[in-house]
């Protein structure tokens, strides 16, 4: 089995290649959007970070189940790492979305279902971190795993509920769902998504190693 140190090196090399390439594709290769101009280029990182944050939720779900089933602290560390990096990515999604919103709608935040739901997902990850920090120490890992599962089962319900709401309430653009992207833009987006996933994996591995080190020092793990 591949060690976390080796995986870290592989992901570091992959990110060192993909992230500059994504910057090149976004700012040089992709054509400017006719209506919004340069601000539209934030879309590549926004979508990439959003997809990577959902991957974090999936990892958190499986790590939480793994911990409750085996009581192995490896899964606990993986859960914490996924939640922390998921929180960082969600913050990027919200931040880039707000910049885009200011340019497109003239306001930083619109009470639109998808925006509000993503803000609440961000709050849930904040709550996970708060529970980890201030929860009862003796049951920290088990409580975090239970909360991780509850958060992750809520995410698909949340996404589905937004899709079921009437169309007039939805302002968020659906470029990916409806198509219509220029082929060069699509290629830039794909590269940006892979770059963000590689960076996310790298950060998760790094955070996982730090968490394991902390567990080792505090609990003799």
């Amino acid at each position, binding site marked *: 089995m591949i060690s976390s140190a080796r995986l870290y090196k592989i992901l570091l090399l992959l990110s060192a290649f993909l992230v500059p390439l994504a910057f090149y594709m976004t700012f040089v290769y992709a054509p400017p959007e006719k209506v919004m101009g340069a601000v539209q280029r934030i879309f590549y990182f926004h979508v990439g970070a959003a997809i990577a944050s959902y991957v974090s939720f999936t990892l958190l779900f499986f790590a939480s189940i793994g911990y409750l089933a085996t009581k192995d602290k490896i899964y606990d560390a993986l859960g914490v790492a996924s939640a922390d990096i998921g929180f960082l990515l969600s913050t990027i999604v919200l931040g880039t979305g707000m910049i885009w919103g200011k340019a497109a709608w003239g306001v930083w935040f619109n009470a639109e279902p998808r925006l509000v739901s993503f803000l*609440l997902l961000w709050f849930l990850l904040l709550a996970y971190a708060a529970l980890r920090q201030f*929860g*009862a120490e003796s049951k920290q890992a*088990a409580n975090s795993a239970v909360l991780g599962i509850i958060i992750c089962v*809520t995410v698909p319900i*949340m996404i589905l509920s937004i899709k*079921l709401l009437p169309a007039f309430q939805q302002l968020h653009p659906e470029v990916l769902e409806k198509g219509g992207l220029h082929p060069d833009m699509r290629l830039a987006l794909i590269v940006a998504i892979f770059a963000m996933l590689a960076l996310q994996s790298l950060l998760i591995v790094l955070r996982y190693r730090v968490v394991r080190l902390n567990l080792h020092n505090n609990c003799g793990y």
Partner: protein
Amino acid sequence: MSFLVQVLLLLQKDLRLEFRRKELLFLSLGLAIILSAVTGFALKSAYLTSSAELALFPGLTWVIFLFSTTVAVSRSYAHDLEYRVLDTLIISGVSSSAVYVSKLLSNFMTGIFTYWATFIFLMVFTGVDSFHVTLDFFVLVALIVLACSALSAIVAPLVQSSALSSLLFPLIYLPLLFVIFFIAVELSGNLLLAGSFSWNSPLVALLIAANVIYILAGINLLDFTIKR
């Protein structure tokens, strides 16, 4: 002892304790009255048209309900933990699923009582009363309150032993309830204002699915949070 008997005995314990202490009842009722009065005053100060007040009413009942019950349900395990009741129950062979279902039912009763109290008080303080309150609406309220209770019965023990439980509980519980709140506002608005409602609506299916998912999660996960 069968599962059902365990649940009924635990529920009886919780209800007797509540009738003696009247803590959650007064807490949620008091908050419902205060918040309804403040909301009524705010609506009157805004000089809204009666149709605008009517359109706001269903959403406002759920906002007040959420804030009134959050404090009450966050304390649903407080007494049990304080006197180590849960430890005793687990040692004596009571299943954690039965503990969960009994807490769900007691939270449900508190929730139903608070919602209807909120509804009546808000009606009094705003003067809005031209609704179509049908049997469908009663069932819909029950389903929404059940989902809130299912979630609160599993979130409360997660934070109960924390020094910051009063801060952590709303931080976790309220964002989790967002979907239910969304569906509640949408469907109760349709029912109360238009009177038209279809049980085949996808939002109703989602509400029922959320109920099933949260109840199953609670039954299976409470064990990990209450055992030492």
